[in-house]
């Protein structure tokens, strides 16, 4: 069929702009979908619509203006209706696209840091916030650094191969992180504010509360005017950060070769809050770790002026924190690498 079409003057003459406007506007209002509306647009504004034909044929200015005005109004009405319908259709579609929100998501493999790493980082972050740096120690140590420089008496039980793993007469797997105190102090002048985490080794038969390899964090502060009060204040802060602000600390006497006075830090029992229960053996308190004022012999050993400088040190077991805080019933679990356990933390 030819694109060109003969125009029938009779038809043109028959156009009644007002009636046409009314019919068209009604059709726009009654369109119930965007598709409907498209049909309305073609019918009333399309190339073959009465309006287009009339516009093509019209000769007098007034009728032309009237028709144009009608066209503009109709275009506007269609566009408004178009928007309304689009919104309605979107709402309808979205209402239909409901999902069961309780359906599980598509799994994404998620990794986990080992609990001991998490606690190590927590320790590091607490002390980084206090202005300490983190230093790395050695695990294989000379008896010089592991014992002599730390003021261990010759009769101290830890010097015995019954308690310590020796490589030869002068070489051991370090029994605590304390040798890193010496190595740090040997390489820098005071002030020293460090923590040093790492693996330690003792000849302990594995059971629920012992593994021959375990982790400690050493802390050391040496400066002018460091006091026992500073040590207690620092450990009180540490205990609350680790175990909760509502917990309380207590410090009791102890003995370590490398500190004098030596203390043990206790935290109020999380089960009974200090009133006594089987977990804390009816004392209300749970031992967390050892500490003390750096023995002057240790300071002198590294060439510090023990009159001018004082210091404190502590060495806490990370596994102990895991047991106390997370209820790990058996330390060996931490080495089993069972994914079900690793994913818990």
């Amino acid at each position, binding site marked *: 069929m030819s694109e060109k079409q003969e125009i029938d003057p009779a038809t043109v003459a028959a156009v009644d702009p007002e009636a046409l406007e009314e019919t068209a506007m009604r059709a726009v209002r009654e369109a119930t979908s965007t598709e409907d509306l498209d049909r309305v647009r073609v019918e009333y504004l399309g190339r073959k619509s009465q309006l287009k034909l009339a516009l093509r044929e019209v000769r007098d200015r007034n009728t032309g203006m009237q028709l144009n005005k009608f066209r503009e109004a109709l275009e506007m009405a269609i566009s408004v209706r178009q928007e309304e319908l689009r919104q309605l259709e979107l709402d309808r579609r979205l209402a239909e696209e409901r999902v069961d929100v309780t359906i599980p998501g598509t799994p994404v*493999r998620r990794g986990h840091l080992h609990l001991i790493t998490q606690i190590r980082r927590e320790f590091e972050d607490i002390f*980084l916030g206090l202005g300490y*740096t983190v230093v790395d120690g050695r695990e*294989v140590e000379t008896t010089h650094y592991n014992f002599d420089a730390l003021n261990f008496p010759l009769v101290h039980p830890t010097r015995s191969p019954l308690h310590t*793993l*020796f490589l030869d007469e002068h070489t051991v797997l370090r029994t605590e992180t304390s040798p890193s105190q010496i190595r740090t102090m040997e390489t820098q002048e005071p002030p020293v*504010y460090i923590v040093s985490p790492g693996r330690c080794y003792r000849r302990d038969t594995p059971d629920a509360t012992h593994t021959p390899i375990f982790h400690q964090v050493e802390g050391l502060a040496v400066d002018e005017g460091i006091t026992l009060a500073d040590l207690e204040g620092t450990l009180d802060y540490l205990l609350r950060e680790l175990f909760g602000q509502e917990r309380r600390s207590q*410090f009791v006497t102890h003995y370590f070769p490398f500190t004098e006075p030596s203390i043990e830090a206790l935290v109020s029992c999380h089960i009974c809050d200090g009133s006594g229960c089987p977990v804390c053996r009816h004392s209300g308190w749970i031992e967390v770790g050892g500490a003390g004022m750096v023995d002057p012999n240790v300071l002198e050993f590294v060439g510090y002026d023990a009159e001018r400088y004082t210091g404190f040190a502590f060495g806490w077991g990370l596994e102990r924190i895991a047991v106390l805080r997370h209820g790990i019933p058996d330390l060996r679990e931490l080495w089993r690498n069972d994914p079900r356990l690793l994913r818990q933390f």
Partner: protein
Amino acid sequence: MRAPLSWLREYVTVDPSAGEIARRLAISALEVERVIDVGVPDVDGNLGRFLVGSVLEARPHANADRLRVCQVDVGEGHPRQIVCGAWNFEAGATVAVALPGALLPVLDQPLREVELRGQQSRGMILAEDEVGLGEDHAGIMVLPRGPEPGTPLHDVLPIHDQVLDVVPTPNRVDLLSMVGLAREVAALLDGDLHPPAPQDPPVVDGEPVVVTVEDPAGCPRYIGRVFRDVKIGPSPQWLRSRLYLAEMRSISNVVDVTNYVMHVWGSPLHAFDRARLAGGRIVVRRARPGEELRTLDGTLRRLETSDLMITDGERSVALAAIMGGEESEVGDETTEILLEAANFEPIGILRSSERLALRTAGSNRWEKGVDPYLAEPAAVLASRMLVDLADAGMTGHVDVHERLPERPVVRLRPERTEHVLGRTLAAEDQRLTLEKLGFEVNQDWTVTVPTWRARDVTREIDLVEEIARPILDAIPHTMPLRRHVRGRLSRDQRLRRLVEDVLVGAGFLEAYTWSLVASDPDPAAVRLPDPMSADQAVLRTTLLPGLVDAARTGLDTGAEDLALFEIARVYLPSGEQLPDERWHLGGILEGGYAETKGVLETLYGALHLDLRVRRGSHRQLHPGKTAETDAGAFGELHPCVLERTWGAFELDLATLFAPVPERIVYEDVITYPAVRQDIAVAVDEDVEVGALVEAAHEAAGPLLREARVFDVYRGEQLDGDRKSVALRLSFQSPERTLTDAEAAELRGAIIALLRARFGGELRA
């Protein structure tokens, strides 16, 4: 050590309860494991239902062969009838009686009046186990004559007691004694101390005691005392009970006395059957080569010349300070004893007891260094008891020693105490604390240390600790001033955390595996000469075997799609005393070479590093699917190692981190668009795609921003041993928009080089 409170209170008068004493001791003196309630319950006047009784009559029961009907005076005016099953007493015996209503630890309900085969029984005559004073149930307790019938039994025997279970630190051997504990309690709780001070028995029919110490360094003091007419027998009930509560076994009066006195003074003693000593002599010397001794436990001990021996001049009779010999053991036939109250040097004793794996209550004290001055009060108390309890006569005494150690004198500056503790503390309070603990403080603040602390307190800081101990709960909590601090992780520590976080983000679980392993691929790996077990004998040089074990554990639990990593030390043999300890990163994941390399690419990308690889080899990896980088190796796990397909990697962290850039400098990758072109080149099968990419960069220079292999095709359209490699080239300049002509020129240069170097034919 067990310290019954009734015993402790004999030496120190102090008001506070057991709980308060324990609390104070725990803060300021030693670890208190627990406070144990023993004996009969102290509730509702229960103790009043236990009385001393006197047996007036004990007749056989007419209707029961094993029972007797007793009339017992318990001070009520008329005797009580009690039916009793024990036969170790007769009329006239003083016994312990529980009245009806009494609560006993061995009964579920209060004691009742009962009729036993027709005879009323209105109470119970007690055996020691029935009131928690021992384990003997062979007969009832027969008490010494003395207390009137009706006397509360609690006045005579500790039928209700609390026992402190304490663990002194190794520097406080003085607290391994009742007197030492009493002294500490007196000082900490303001009590009055009155240690036992019996009269030393006189020497009768005096005879010389021959003691020769050939090794005064090992044995600085030896008191030898001889007793004759010794009557060996059981110990009286009070002694049996005390030993029982202190966790020691009652053996005989003589042996019990030595153990009791050790517990009182902390200085161990030994009693020899003197008739078994050649010439009744004692010679203290080191063991001879090849010498042997059968100790009291029946074991034949092979001795070394470093072992200190008690001998009679001819042969050894005891392993000094550790255990007596079987031959000279005091037994029922003994009538003559030599009491040893000596002092031994700790180090040798420790070495001997460790080597022989023989630790005793005695060696446990000696190895910590016992005060040589204690030998004397211990000898006196033991002598008094031997005379009183074994009816013996002391016939000789000798005290062999060289000059005993002087008491240390230490200068204290009270202001130094304040400086170390971080609080004010009046000088007079400091003096008072020291004096209560037995120190003598002179006007000029020189302090004389008591003999029992002479090894432990030798410096000003030791005195500061003595002053600090009682007030550890009264120290303020402050923070160091920290005028110069810099709290930041080092570069490598930050990168290590980044690696951990990237791998966790990639779904890896962090494993912890043992640094000590059964064997290591490196034959030179450091080996423990005396490992705890064959499983933990070598310091590892690689993390992979541990991770393989961990993966196997995961498989056993049914885990799917497992990925594990570990960051830990390896210990590389260095040829020097200490191995080269290096941080390694190891990983294992279920998947093939491509998945593994993808993880490495992610990791390197996070570190802003290019992953450059070359073909490599590794014992645990698939020989055809192993790559090397500067920092280590990765690839597919050798199929023999683990079922299913796994990838693994192990990198040296320091090497990995070394080229990580300090900072990333801005590069304009936005303003001027990149021109992308794909090419496909057919090359021989053995040409590695990595070499093509490298050549592309070489040919095009910095304007080639990226060349990425996106397809490798092998098939019919190619000659047999050739493959087609598709590369996506991305040309970009930070300074201008590249023209098509420039891009075409660069592309041409790349194609030319690929053809020249690899015979590559352009396919598209």
